């Protein structure tokens, strides 16, 4: 799952940590082999003349194995390991579950909605493109803008993680790590775009899984195996020793649970794979990716629990140091090299997906639908995508080199995505939702989110109760949408209403102490209330068949577009 802790401060502690370091030759060889092999693999699918649609979503019929592997690899990034282990160390038995389980569910809960997206727009490239066909430019740009910010930050976080890892485990510097990762990822993604990303994801995932499968049992038995529980359990507090720790649920599990749908809807990397996989394989792909993500991330999170049981103290008191510290202390040099490749593989697979996502958004939502007014030149479009990748990589490398605290921005954007979930989903199921309803709902939710997140108004008295009631509605919306995805409209409405009613008395006077959870739920609640209210005031009805007619393949539709010179340049406008 994306929201997590990046090892930004890890590098600062590397000297005092006295960790094992790979030699310069070994480090360079490992990096060269990894990126060199990945580049050679990508050459196998390179074409002199790439197709713009394939560059963004492949052929819309990628098979189960490649899709599931790509989905899993993309959703796991370097920081997932660190954050899962931190959660295991902090919250004990249930900690890793409260990170990895909800992250895995993000993938699972999107597929019922994903099938609807594919049914409405089989040739779509981005979710923003579908919103353009449904509502017009304002809604499209809200979605595209939030996706660009999210993917841009994610890219930077991955480069930062590469710099930190290289600085800790090799004699190279932080900037060396950032530059090598940036150039390495760009080299194999630039020419064939999304197709390269999917193809290389499989190899990167195999490396990741093999490393996890070896490292977890190895460290467990190095620490004493089952005997560790006998000696270590007394070190745990009662809450850490319980699977039902309220602190773990409220501080870790609940905010992640709320973010389940937001991250899935707000992330173009998921949408892209959704549009790429063969339509009848969406369900098995997403179920397998859910299991794969859960197994790997929860498994590596167990290293945090093992560290807690063994009484390991994170160097410098920084939980981000736990995994490298465990690897360095308990693993032989060969396996540390494997660990190094595992982390580089995880961050590269996510970074190449971010590059592909950014290029698809700029190609489709900015150039294709706006600058070219729906009649793009495929050749120009392709170069727009490649230029986007170069600019995004350069920007990501620069920001990563500055070592800014960008993770808090990503968490902020992730929580903010709660504002768009209901408007997006309802727009594709309910024919009464209008552009005005969509944009006003998102803007109102954004405003209320910012107020509650940064406590711009004192969350006390009537104001506090108002936000808590909105958050209770938000809780109902989350449960309602999840139920709706799997069991239909009536079940969704009943479950949502029941949840909101049950939550309301508990939320009042309580949620104000948890601003992260309160603000995320408020975004869901307010966006839903405004969207429903404004939509009910409208008498318009939308014909969903129009979406499929308006969202077409760019390259395939080119000849048709030339024949239809007299048709409106921009069929959908504000």
């Amino acid at each position: 799952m994306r929201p997590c802790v990046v090892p930004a401060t890890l590098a600062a502690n590397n000297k005092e940590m006295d960790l094992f370091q790979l030699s310069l030759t070994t480090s360079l060889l490992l990096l060269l082999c990894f990126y060199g092999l990945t580049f050679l693999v990508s050459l196998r699918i390179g074409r002199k003349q790439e197709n713009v649609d394939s560059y963004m979503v492949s052929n819309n019929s990628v098979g189960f194995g490649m899709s599931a592997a790509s989905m899993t690899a993309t959703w796991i990034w370097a920081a997932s390991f660190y954050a899962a282990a931190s959660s295991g160390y902090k919250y004990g038995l249930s900690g890793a579950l409260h990170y990895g389980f909800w992250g895995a569910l993000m993938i699972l809960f999107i597929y019922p909605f994903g099938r609807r997206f594919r049914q409405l727009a089989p040739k779509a490239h981005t979710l923003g493109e579908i919103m353009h066909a449904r509502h017009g430019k304002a809604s499209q740009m809200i979605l595209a803008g939030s996706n660009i910010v999210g993917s841009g930050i994610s890219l930077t976080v991955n480069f930062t993680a590469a710099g930190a890892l290289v600085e800790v485990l090799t004699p190279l510097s932080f900037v060396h790590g950032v530059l090598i990762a940036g150039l390495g990822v760009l080299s194999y993604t630039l020419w064939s775009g999304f197709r390269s990303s999917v193809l290389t994801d499989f190899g990167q995932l195999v490396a990741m899984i093999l490393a996890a499968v070896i490292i977890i049992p190895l460290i467990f038995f190095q620490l004493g195996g089952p005997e560790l529980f006998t000696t270590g359990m007394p070190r745990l507090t009662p809450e850490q020793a319980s699977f039902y720790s309220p602190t773990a649920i409220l501080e870790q599990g609940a905010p992640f649970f709320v973010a389940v749908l937001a991250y899935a809807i707000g992330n173009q990397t998921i949408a892209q794979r959704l549009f790429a996989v063969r339509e009848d394989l969406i369900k098995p792909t997403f179920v397998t990716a859910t299991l794969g993500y859960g197994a790997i991330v929860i498994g590596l999170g167990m290293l945090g629990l093992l560290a807690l049981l063994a009484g390991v103290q994170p160097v410098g008191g920084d939980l981000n140091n736990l995994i490298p510290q465990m690897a360095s202390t308990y693993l032989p040099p060969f396996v540390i090299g494997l660990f190094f490749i595992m982390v580089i593989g995880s961050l590269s697979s996510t970074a190449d997906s971010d590059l592909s996502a950014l290029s698809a958004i700029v190609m489709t939502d900015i150039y294709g639908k706006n600058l070219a007014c729906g009649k793009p030149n495929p050749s120009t479009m392709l170069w727009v995508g490649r230029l986007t990748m170069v600019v995004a990589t350069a920007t990501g490398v620069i920001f990563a080199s500055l070592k800014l605290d960008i993770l808090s921005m990503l968490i902020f954007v992730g929580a903010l995505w709660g504002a768009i979930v209901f408007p997006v989903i309802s727009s594709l199921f309910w024919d009464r939702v209008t552009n005005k309803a969509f944009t006003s709902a998102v803007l109102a939710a954004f405003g209320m989110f910012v107020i509650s997140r940064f406590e711009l108004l004192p969350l006390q008295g009537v104001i506090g109760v108002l936000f808590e009631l909105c958050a209770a509605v938000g809780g109902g919306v989350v449960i309602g949408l999840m139920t709706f995805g799997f069991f239909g409209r009536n079940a969704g409405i009943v479950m949502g209403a029941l949840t909101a009613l049950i939550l309301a008395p508990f939320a009042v006077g309580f949620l104000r102490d948890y601003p992260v959870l309160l603000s995320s739920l408020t975004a869901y609640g307010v966006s839903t209330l405004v969207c429903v209210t404004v939509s009910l005031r409208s008498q318009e009805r939308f014909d969903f068949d129009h979406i499929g007619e308006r969202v077409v393949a760019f390259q395939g539709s080119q000849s048709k577009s030339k024949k239809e010179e007299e048709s409106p340049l921009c069929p959908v406008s504000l």
Partner: protein
Amino acid sequence: MSSLALTAYVLVWPAMASIVLAVLCVGVAHDMRAAKRNGTDLV
């Protein structure tokens, strides 16, 4: 919980990851065969 149950709790995840890896490898092999049979690209 017994040490045995907790050991299973820790080791079940790499075991599950191994199964997923096997499923994915079979899936990709199937995709490659299908692409070769149909004369299409894998991705």
